[in-house]
């Protein structure tokens, strides 16, 4: 299967390529050729592409340590996408909307978003500075044992915050409740950006839940952490 055809069928895969640091000019390369050029196992890329296309990862080969390190780098890259691209974009739209409609209701909505954004940043920082380094140490054979005890994959799973719930609140407020007259262009752009973010956050947590956490738990068991 050629990568370009897959992108044609589901353009969201562009985001996946970006998170893998794969260039969009995929020429006529097949998935297999693309994987070998970028040093990614086909098993991993196909599993994640399947998640993007709505299939489960069950029944796949177990992921190797190298795969899992690449998963972590994938998740880190998606953090950069949230931090530097998607959230600032949404934040700009909301600020613009607030300037066009300077009433107190919009001001509250902006405040809601800013508080939410701060929470998101905190969660991303937590994953970057505590969760991911833990997994990297765990994957570095032999080192993890003395590090263990204080932290575990299970705890990481429990630390999932309500990022997706608040995003849903924001969408519902805009679609159902907040009174704004006109400005449809700006509001559409804002809503589309929220849906794009929602989609990638959903994939992000699927990858954590279906790939990273189960593999982490498996390795912990092997090492008896």
């Amino acid at each position: 299967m050629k990568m370009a055809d897959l992108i044609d069928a589901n353009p969201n895969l562009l985001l996946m390529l970006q998170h893998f640091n794969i260039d969009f000019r995929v020429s006529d390369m097949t998935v297999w050729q693309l994987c070998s050029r970028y040093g990614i196992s086909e098993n991993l890329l196909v599993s994640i592409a399947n998640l993007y296309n709505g299939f489960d990862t069950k029944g796949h080969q177990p992921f190797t340590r190298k795969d899992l390190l690449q998963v972590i780098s994938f998740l880190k890259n998606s953090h950069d996408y949230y931090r530097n691209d998607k959230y600032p974009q949404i934040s700009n739209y909301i600020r613009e909307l607030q300037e066009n409609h300077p009433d107190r209701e919009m001001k509250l909505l902006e405040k809601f978003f800013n508080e939410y954004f701060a929470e998101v940043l905190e969660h991303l920082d937590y994953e970057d500075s505590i969760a991911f380094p833990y997994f990297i140490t765990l994957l570095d054979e032999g080192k993890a044992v003395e590090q263990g005890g204080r932290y575990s994959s299970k705890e990481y799973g429990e630390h999932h915050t309500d990022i997706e719930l608040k995003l849903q609140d924001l969408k519902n407020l805009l679609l159902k409740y907040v009174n704004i007259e006109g400005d449809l262009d700006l509001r559409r752009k804002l809503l589309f950006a929220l849906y794009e973010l929602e989609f990638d956050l959903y994939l992000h947590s699927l990858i954590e839940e279906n790939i990273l956490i189960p593999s982490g738990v498996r390795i912990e068991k092997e090492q008896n952490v």
Partner: protein
Amino acid sequence: MYKPPLHIAIMEPSKIIFEGLQTIICHSPLDCRVSRVERLEELTEMMGHSPVAILIANPMQFVNLEKEVRKLRKVYPTLSIAGIDFGIIHRQSMLTDISFTLYDTPEHIVHSLMKLQEKSQQSEQEKVEEENLSPREIEVLTCLVNGMLNKEIADLLNISVHTVVRHRKNITLKTGIRSQSGLTIYAISKKIVSIEDIEI
């Protein structure tokens, strides 16, 4: 516009049957993802983080677990169950919504699943449509927006904390808004509280 795909779980120990069903479903027009579960507990756990809309199950898996299945359906009213009929069941089991046999055509199986999906979407819509809050819920919401704690609300309205929690659950269910700051904006948009009362 993004809507999460329909989540279908298959609980069937035979790999041949599982993969056959998965192939039929994935080649159908249903926008869905398919998971495999081995035991009922696994399904219960899955409901917590990625809710299943339709369970396709070998009814043998329910033997001696009837109580658990009923409980699961009570907790997750939007879960539909399709049973695989191996010809040993003589009447429609009370635990399943529909059933099909392994000799049915793929079209027939997909058609029954689509009908089930419509049913579960309808019940979800009905839930959303009842957005109007009751007078009591409006009182609780007003207190919440003013930053009162559950205990304070209970004392003021002369009800138990347990009842306050139930009202809060219903408010969230009806409005689709979960966070306190989101509810504040809801209350203002709906003119339940005056915007001048809120500190920005």
